[in-house]
């Protein structure tokens, strides 16, 4: 009888672990919710640091990026869809960069899930990517954002108090960079 009780405690421990893991895994934030707090390493490249409005070295919370709207692409070097998507995302970056009114208000970063810094470098070089890419080698950010399939785009409206609201998200190809940007500007109230 007592053995049965102890066995049941074991079952309970298992389910507690699973439930804790689900909580730790996080869920994919929906429109109107806030994006979970994540920390990244500051880029070594000065142009990228300037783009993000950062200085120095070490880690930084995403809330420190100087922008009104932040587009985060969750991708992987190993994802064929992300490879196909890379030129379209580059054209989105170029579109924003050439608009004088937008380039300080809308910033774009990529997070390579399960990718080492070396693998992020290969992806950057292969597709001549100019916006900052960050490795998420341990899948920690991937887990925090609900283990989305790739590519996945989160668009956050950043507030001066450091908080943010998700205004738009998309799984898969953005297809047309111009149209995508138009939607984002409309959804965020920037236009």
């Amino acid at each position, binding site marked *: 009888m*007592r*053995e049965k009780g*102890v*066995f049941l*405690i*074991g*079952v309970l*421990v*298992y389910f507690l*672990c*699973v439930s804790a*893991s689900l909580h730790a895994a996080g869920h994919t934030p929906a429109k109107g919710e806030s994006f979970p707090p994540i920390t990244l390493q500051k880029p070594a490249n000065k142009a990228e640091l300037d783009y993000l409005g950062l200085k120095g070295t070490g880690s930084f919370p995403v809330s420190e990026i100087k922008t009104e709207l932040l587009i985060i692409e969750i991708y*992987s*070097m*190993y*994802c*064929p*869809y*992300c*490879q*196909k998507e890379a030129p379209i995302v580059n054209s989105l970056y170029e579109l924003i960069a050439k608009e004088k009114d937008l380039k300080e208000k809308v910033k774009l970063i990529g997070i390579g*899930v*399960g990718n*080492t810094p*070396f*693998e992020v470098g*290969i*992806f950057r070089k*292969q597709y001549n990517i100019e916006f900052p890419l960050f490795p998420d080698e341990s*899948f920690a950010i*991937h*887990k925090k954002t609900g*283990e989305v*399939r*790739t*590519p*996945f785009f989160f668009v956050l409206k950043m507030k001066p108090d450091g908080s943010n609201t998700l205004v738009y998200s998309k*799984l*898969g190809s953005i297809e047309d960079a111009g149209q995508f940007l138009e939607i984002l500007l409309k959804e965020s109230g920037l236009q």
Partner: protein
Amino acid sequence: MRNDYTYGFISCLFFFVLFLSSSPAFGVSEQFQGKIFDPGMLKPVDSKTKLKAGMKAPDFSLPSLSGNVVALNEYRNKKNIVLSFVPAAWTPVCSDQWPGYNLMEEIFGRHDTILIGITVDNIPTLYAWTREMGELWFPVLSDFWPHGAVSKKYGVLRSNGVSERALFVIDKKGIIRYIDVHDINTRPNLEILLKEIERLKK
């Protein structure tokens, strides 16, 4: 009483191990649109190869996706070779390992090295699966019939008929220079593989 505590400890430990083994981490590309079969966490390695670095790589010839038969000795004195055995089409990790290698053509080329992909799947399955990966620059061979014969020759055929996730680096003389029979649940480290390729003579 003491036995009860021991029993309780073992029981908790069992479920804790079960919990740890039930949460593999991998990213899935939207490209595959939910078509990837998740086998869960598998026994990391389920074979034992007798091959070692310094030994001659066993010769073989297998049908490729492009319709040719590819023989290992075609590359003798011409190219270094990386043989990439992956367990099965339409499974996690395998479905992103080769798309990643697909970005490595220039780096492999710089070291006079060719990549050869091998699975025990048949050609139609490989055709459908690799079409999702875009245009692959390296040959993909089918070790389907006699089933897994080359995988067996290399000592990497698992007891359920699929191969290990294994890498063999072979120099131009046909000598094995590096073997990584990897944990089937995880992707081999790309930097380690590249360091091994860099050590080969052009």
